[in-house]
């Protein structure tokens, strides 16, 4: 469905981030996908692998994580909405459990590049915490 256009956005952000960190290769990237979206994680991975070909992310291992919804209500309630328990598909119950009004989803509608893993790069201007080997120990 629309994973290909979203995948293009994710890849472009990953390549920008790698370039900002002086890396010429991306070893892995993680995408957070909200549960209250129609983005299909498996299709997302498939699309990303396809369009990453001949880019610095060509060999990247792609991981996805599900972000569970959170909602807030004007009455002050905040929490994880229940599922509507529709057979086969997930949708949050957006009725506030306290007052019955419609609550706003504040989490669970994202499709976000959460992290990238890049080879160890040593730059004098980078603080130690930015070194990839401290992050994941990925080989250069």
């Amino acid at each position, binding site marked *: *469905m*629309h994973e*290909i*256009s*979203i995948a293009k*956005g*994710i890849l472009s*952000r990953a390549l920008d*981030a790698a370039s900002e*960190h002086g890396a010429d290769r991306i070893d892995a990237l993680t995408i*957070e996908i*909200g549960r*209250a*979206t*129609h*983005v299909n*994680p*498996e299709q*997302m*991975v*498939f699309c*990303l*692998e396809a369009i990453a070909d001949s880019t610095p992310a060509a060999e*990247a*291992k*792609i*991981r*996805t*994580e*599900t*972000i*569970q919804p959170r909602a807030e209500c004007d009455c002050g309630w905040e929490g994880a909405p229940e599922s*509507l328990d*529709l057979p086969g*598909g997930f*949708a*949050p119950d*957006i*009725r506030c459990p306290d007052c*019955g*009004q*419609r609550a706003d989803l504040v989490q669970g*509608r*994202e*499709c*976000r*590049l*959460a*992290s*990238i*893993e*890049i080879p160890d790069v040593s730059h004098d201007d980078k*603080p130690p*915490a*930015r070194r*990839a080997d*401290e*992050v994941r120990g990925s080989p250069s």
Partner: protein
Amino acid sequence: MAGLHHDHGVRFGLPDLRERLLGPLRAHRFGHGEFEATGGSDAEADVLAAIRERAGEVHERLVHDHEVFAVEFVGSTGGGKTKLIEELLERAPADERVGAVVGDVAGEDDATRLREYGIPVENINTGKECHLDPDGVDSALSAFDLDALDTLYVENVGNMVCPADFPLGTSLRVLVVSTTEGGDVVGKHPLLVQAADAAIVNKIDLAEAVGTDLDRVRGDIHEVAPEIPVFETNARAGTGVDALAAFLDARRESHTGHTHQ
């Protein structure tokens, strides 16, 4: 297969998710922490948030800068979106300046129908895409003199899945479902129903013939998206369209401060 799908908190075996999110890894995470710290927005790492941000820009241009009341119609192919817009055009006061943006994967059928009313219509063929997106609508807007428009109808591609993730920046998003799609149509597409500001159940005259339980459709809308107003129409005969038109006029007033009698 390189891709693995995991729920939170299992991949690294760390005892505490917060530690993973906020600990030393943070320097290589893109999203909340890093972008907020540098004054950027969430949308820089979140593609869907970026789309919502783009929709917000379209909204600003259309609704606030040019005071156009914009109404999106979204729903399945064959649900009656174009017919409902035609019925609203039939009822539009003579001094209301209306335009339309029509999205379809291919063809100009809907645009041709609306042009019969003598209004400016921009047709968007999405090709491989299954929905309109804010960029496409924004480009289409350049074909209009927005200062010379009171109302813009935006008819999305017939699709009840993808548009849920792609708001367009209109004043209102109106979902059209029809009885011929079955009594379970709402429960099958809950996220789109939740993304709508109002719902129309069309072809009510056919409910009995196709065995659709209208009470179930009404009940499902209420359960999935509490508080959104629901209108029941038979667009072909014009039934129920007056109530819809009155609702839109009331919303127009609250959006732009303009009224049309």
